[in-house]
């Protein structure tokens, strides 16, 4: 019903206008105590594109997501969101549920479903946040409450159908396969009618077949629903095939941005992933397999004290995770 089918001819991919930014973040700086997790990150996301964020472990990708969705409040910077309907919203410092209501939905790196509820209920919870029905009307069984119930039911069925979980409506979320759980998380995010969808490593832990299906799903979300997708992913094959543009983070800084092929050639990126010649196998495994290796391994001199910096960046990530656990969502990590 309210799925926005914007099948513009040629697809939004061609229509992604470089000037029309749906998410425009500048100078985001996020610190946890002495650890700087994000250091003046710039992010310009065009409407209707699929933008991938890549970077080694601890580069600040998830921190960036958390900052964009209100789970963390960066100390500095601006995050401007421009919905289709017009207007501008500052997302920094907004509570997560408000960010979601404006049309920015997300999934989580470590799947966070409501495990003891069924797939249908998981999605309904999301769909219902858009419907007005207070506790009193529910208790009295007013027509408005019944209508809302019916509508959320329809909406949930529709979304589950879209992601291909129509046959598993009544299974418990916790008992679904890993790939299905990932898809259910996406369905839950889609049920809130987002304009921007943030996917945090949606392919982690899925098998090759599921990866292909996921790739297809991301494309369909982008093309058929007209949702702009921001994607964190380690699987380079997936990133290169699905993303319109790629942004690379390292140590909380943006080190490159551009089309997938351009980013692959970027010496700074190669170094970030492979490190200096002394580079170790500890850097991300998925990265170097596609064409970057030939000139990458020998390109740079060993000037960067890589080893000394990696642990501190990791600590930053850990601090972030801890903060996420201990704090109310939307509380300021100051």
């Amino acid at each position, binding site marked *: 019903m309210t799925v926005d089918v914007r099948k513009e001819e040629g697809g939004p991919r061609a229509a992604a206008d470089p000037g029309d930014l749906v998410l425009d973040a500048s100078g985001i700086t996020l610190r946890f105590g002495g650890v700087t997790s994000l250091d003046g990150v710039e992010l310009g996301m065009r409407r209707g594109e699929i933008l991938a964020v890549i970077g080694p472990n601890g580069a600040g990708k998830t921190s960036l997501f958390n900052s964009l969705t209100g789970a963390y409040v960066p100390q500095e910077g601006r995050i401007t969101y421009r919905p289709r309907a017009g207007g501008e919203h500052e997302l920094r410092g907004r509570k997560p549920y408000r960010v979601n209501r404006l049309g920015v939905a997300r999934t989580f790196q470590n799947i966070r479903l409501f495990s003891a509820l069924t797939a249908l209920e998981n999605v309904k919870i999301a769909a219902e946040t858009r419907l007005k029905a207070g506790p009193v009307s529910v208790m*009295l069984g007013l027509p408005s409450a019944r209508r809302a119930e019916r509508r959320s039911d329809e909406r949930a069925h529709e979304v589950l159908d879209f992601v291909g979980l129509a046959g598993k409506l009544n299974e418990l979320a916790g008992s679904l396969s890993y790939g299905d759980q990932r898809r259910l998380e996406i369905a839950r995010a889609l049920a*809130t009618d987002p304009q921007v969808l943030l996917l945090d490593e949606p392919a982690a832990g899925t098998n090759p077949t599921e990866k292909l299906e996921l790739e297809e799903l991301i494309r369909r979300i982008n093309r058929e629903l007209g949702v702009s997708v921001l994607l964190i992913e380690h699987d380079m094959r997936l990133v290169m095939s699905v993303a319109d543009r790629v942004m690379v983070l390292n140590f909380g800084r943006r080190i490159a941005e551009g089309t997938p092929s351009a980013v692959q050639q970027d010496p700074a990126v190669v170094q970030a992933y492979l490190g200096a010649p002394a580079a170790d196998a500890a850097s991300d495994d998925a990265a170097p397999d596609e064409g970057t290796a030939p000139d990458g391994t020998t390109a740079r001199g060993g000037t960067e004290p890589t080893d000394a910096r990696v642990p501190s960046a990791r600590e930053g990530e850990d601090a972030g995770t801890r903060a996420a656990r201990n704090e109310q*969502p939307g509380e300021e990590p100051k």
Partner: protein
Amino acid sequence: MSATTSVNVRTARRLRAERWYQRPRWRRLAAMVALAVTMTLVTGAQGSHQDLFFALEENLTGVALWVWLALAVAVWAGREFLTPQVASAVSGSRALASGPLGRVREVWRADRRVRFGVLAVAAALAVLVPSGLDRYWQTVLVDQIAIFVLVAVGLNVVIGWAGMLDLGFIAFFAIGAYSAAYWTGALPVQPPMVLNNFAVIPIAVVTCLVAGVLLGAPTLRLRGDYLAIVTLGFHEIVYLSAKNLADYTGGTRGVKVDRFAVDLGFWSYEWGVVDAMPYYYLLLAFVAVVVFLFWRLEHSKVGRAWTAIREDEVAAASTGVDTVRYKLMAFAIGASTSGVAGVAYASKVGYINSENFVILLSVLVLAYVIFGGMGSIPGVLFGAAFLVWLPEALRSLVDPKDRYMYLGGLLVVMMIYRPQGVIPSRRRSRELKLARSGEVEGDGTTEPAGGRLS
């Protein structure tokens, strides 16, 4: 050389191996035996300051110790060795389940008339049976069971559905009771106008709503144990205010409250002092209405949002659920139910003082909810009714001073063997199972009590 190596290997293996007494099954036996000894000591002869070891000697050489031990071992053995067999018998009877049992379930699920029929029979029993009881039990039924069932159903919203540990729930009960006293003109301070007890109910509901929000708003950023401590403090504040502001509340001396009465001009009725049954019907109606409304709430958007918050607050917020609003809502709804119970209590008993609202009651109500099964309305109804009835029933059987010891012993056994409660809610027991198998993190109220059942 090789000898020492093999010795080392053996030592290492021995150190790694789980000792038999470390296995959950035997640890539970140890717990049960300890419980038996404790029960022997606390329910046996009393000590004296002249002979310090008198009670110890008397109790541990008596026959009671052996009775308690036999009971503990019997419960332990039954649960440890019979349950797997029963379980396998049950699962082996899947055939049975798809056969006659399944048929019953099918009819139950498919046909509304059957469900209404069963409900009608239950309602008829609830209405008719108590009139056959003797006066003492009728009073117990009204003054305690019906009232505390109502309170427990309210607490269930807060703890069972929204997953917030509230240790001070009786504070709202007290606020309801004192509202009734104030507005009927019973307190030393006079209200602007004296109202009928029934008219006080909505006022008490609103007062408790406001009190719930006032307590909730600043504290909802706290979680689990921290929230529990704050609610505990809130209870103490209310209780001590009632106790020490004697010029306003009557303090420990208490005040006399009018009873329920209706006067419509052409028809009037007064709920009397002696006969408890009219109160019973009134409270039965209260409970029925509240249960019906809450049942709807549970299976609605609101109930699902609470479950989401309980399971994963971060995910719920990221999905657009206004977590603070829903938590406040749970606090307010639970508090107002407790407030209604408070008005009913004050109006039935006809006299309240600050000692009616001690902290023990808050803890007991929490025990009713957990015992019956958090989040499950039938469970909470049963849990409250049974645990209020039990001490009364024990009054004639054992030393009345020891009644609550038996209650405690029962709760300990319950938490070892059936932490999900007597009639658990489906969602809750799934959560508990997932938390146990380590698939999800339990919240403050789903954390398993320790040790997993083999």
